[in-house]
């Protein structure tokens, strides 16, 4: 009886989340810097007429941007969920751990030194950056006696991010790149095009699907290393695969949207609170919630003071920082 209730609740949450996502996308596509009637907007999406300038605005500027926000939000949130699962660490997030900073750094460097780089190679560079930063942190963790506590992991991430940031400032000053890099760190989805989406969406969806299949093992791992081993989970392997998935997801998103933090921190916590500890469910629901959060953040960034636009990273930080503070206060177990 309990179990059926539970399943029912989960079902309900999924339906509600999907409905909310659709509503959010609908809203964010309907309103923008240029005022258009709802009818025009949805005609542009479903019966696109290339001759009309209003259709073009929706089809080539607004809709790709909303989708871009949705998919990068998914990716950041799932990456955060996996990281939190495999490290058994509530503070893990690709933004806080410096993984996003790692890929932003490499992306910015490739802009500076490899002019005319294609989008697909840019994405690869972004993966490399994310992977290097992750490797750094994992090594740092394995070198610390007693393994990684939340605190150590967070601080190690902050150090790695600080080093990367400082290095990129140095590179920027020495090679005279000035404000370009700052723009990249601020993040934003205004430049997303269909061409980007064609590359980005398959990568993200496949990786998320793959993560869901790892869900069972991650759940056991997140409940405790020993019991996971007893249940036949190859912890080392799952950790490695999980980290790889997180790296791919954050690398892919950073390559279009820049370093946006906090999504991966906030979303999985909310989701866990709602539907419990099963990562087979946490992962997909995190994806939906992440998409909602980032679409809203982007929507807010362009609607606060239209037609001007704010940095999306700052918008997310406005939600993320208070949440982080709340977590830091709540984390009593190890304090």
């Amino acid at each position, binding site marked *: 009886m309990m179990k059926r209730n539970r399943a029912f609740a989960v079902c309900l949450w999924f339906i509600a989340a999907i409905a909310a996502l659709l509503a959010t996308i609908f809203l964010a596509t309907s309103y923008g810097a240029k005022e258009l009637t709802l009818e025009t907007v949805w005609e542009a999406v479903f019966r696109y007429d290339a001759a009309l300038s209003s259709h073009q605005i929706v089809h080539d500027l607004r809709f790709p941007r909303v989708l871009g926000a949705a998919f990068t939000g998914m990716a950041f949130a799932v990456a955060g969920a996996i990281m939190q699962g495999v490290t058994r660490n509530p503070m893990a997030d690709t933004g*806080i751990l410096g993984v996003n900073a790692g890929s932003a750094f490499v992306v910015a460097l490739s802009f500076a030194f490899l002019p005319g780089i294609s989008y697909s190679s840019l994405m690869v560079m972004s993966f490399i950056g994310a992977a290097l930063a992750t490797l750094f942190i994992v090594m740092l963790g394995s070198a610390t006696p007693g393994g990684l506590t939340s*605190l150590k992991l*967070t*601080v190690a991430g902050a150090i790695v991010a600080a080093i990367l940031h400082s*290095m990129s*400032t140095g590179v920027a000053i020495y090679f005279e790149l000035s*404000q370009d890099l700052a723009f990249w760190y601020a993040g934003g989805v205004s430049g997303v095009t269909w061409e980007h989406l064609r590359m980005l969406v398959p990568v993200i969806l496949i990786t998320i699907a793959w993560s869901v299949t790892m869900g069972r093992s991650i759940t056991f791992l997140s409940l405790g290393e020993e019991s996971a081993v007893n249940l036949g989970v190859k912890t080392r392997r799952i950790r490695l695969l999980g980290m790889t998935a997180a790296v791919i997801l954050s690398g892919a998103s950073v390559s279009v949207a820049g370093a946006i933090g906090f999504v991966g921190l906030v979303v999985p916590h909310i989701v866990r609170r709602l539907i419990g500890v099963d990562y087979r469910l946490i992962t997909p629901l995190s994806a939906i919630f992440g998409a909602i959060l980032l679409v809203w953040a982007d929507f807010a960034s362009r609607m606060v003071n239209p037609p001007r636009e704010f940095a999306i*990273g700052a918008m997310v930080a406005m939600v*993320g920082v208070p949440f982080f503070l709340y977590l830091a206060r709540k984390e009593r177990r190890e304090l």
Partner: protein
Amino acid sequence: MNIEQLSRSRVRRALIASAALLVIAIAVIAISLNTGSLRLTPLAVLRTLLGGGSSDENLVMFEYRLPRIIVTMLAGIGLGISGAILQGVSRNALADPGILGINAGAALGLMLFVSFFRSMEGPAALLIPLFTFMGGAVTAVIIFLFAYDRHRGIIPARLILVGIAVAAGISSLTLLLSLRLDPNIYAFAARWLAGSVWGREWEHVWALLPWIVLLVPFVYSRSRTLDLFAMGDDAAASVGSPVSRDRIIFLSIAVAISCASVAMVGGIGFIGLAAPHIARRLAGPQHRFFLPVAGMVGLVILVLADTIGRSVFQPNAIPAGVVVAAIGGPYFLYLLFKTKT
């Protein structure tokens, strides 16, 4: 080896380390005094310092180079010591004023100044330190408030987490403001943020000096209290140390010293992190020996980094903070690895 022998060998080690560091510091300062776009022979430098220079040489030495080096030295000491205090009080080897959000707060102070108050009456030479100091101090207070628990005082681990969170939030505000600056101002702000040893005047020396001269000896005189923190709250309380109150006092001092230092040299991280680690390896964990060594290490690192940044990378001088991060960051990671094996 009995306890007396042990402590004697500790004293000897600390003395040797201090002497060696002093020699290195003097050498680094000498090199730094000889660095600049105007060529002066070492002999001319010496002559000028002793009072026998030409008017131009006097100008270069006493107006341009000396104040900058003194500011660098003081800030290096300040950052090293405040890092040592923070690590002692929080019992966390990864604590650092930069990670605690002080650099982020100071940076926001600078951004607010250049974005909104640039036309304010008064000399920029003192207004910028005022704004950055306030930024750092206000941030620290915010972090303290969030990390404060009614029953247990300031909880060290929470302090660091809260620090990181607040720093992240403040940095995103700073970034937001920095995108709106015109390129000239941005270039200045970026260099400041990267730690370019911005304070170069005697006024800056006088503004920084009292903090170091008054607070550092005070901390040193209380070094036993710092030793007690290392034992853990309960143990420290059991020998009669008022843990919560002392912690707040020491934290405030660490914040004051590092805010004053950062206000003069710009956003420099890692010194507060790395200097205490190096010092601990040289002089052992007792604060009596290890505090002065941490200050000296901080001094050497910062002066060296500033000199390297100015001389090696001509004509685009690299800010000292970047040099510190580029060398200090990896070295610090290496230190962490080595402690395990």
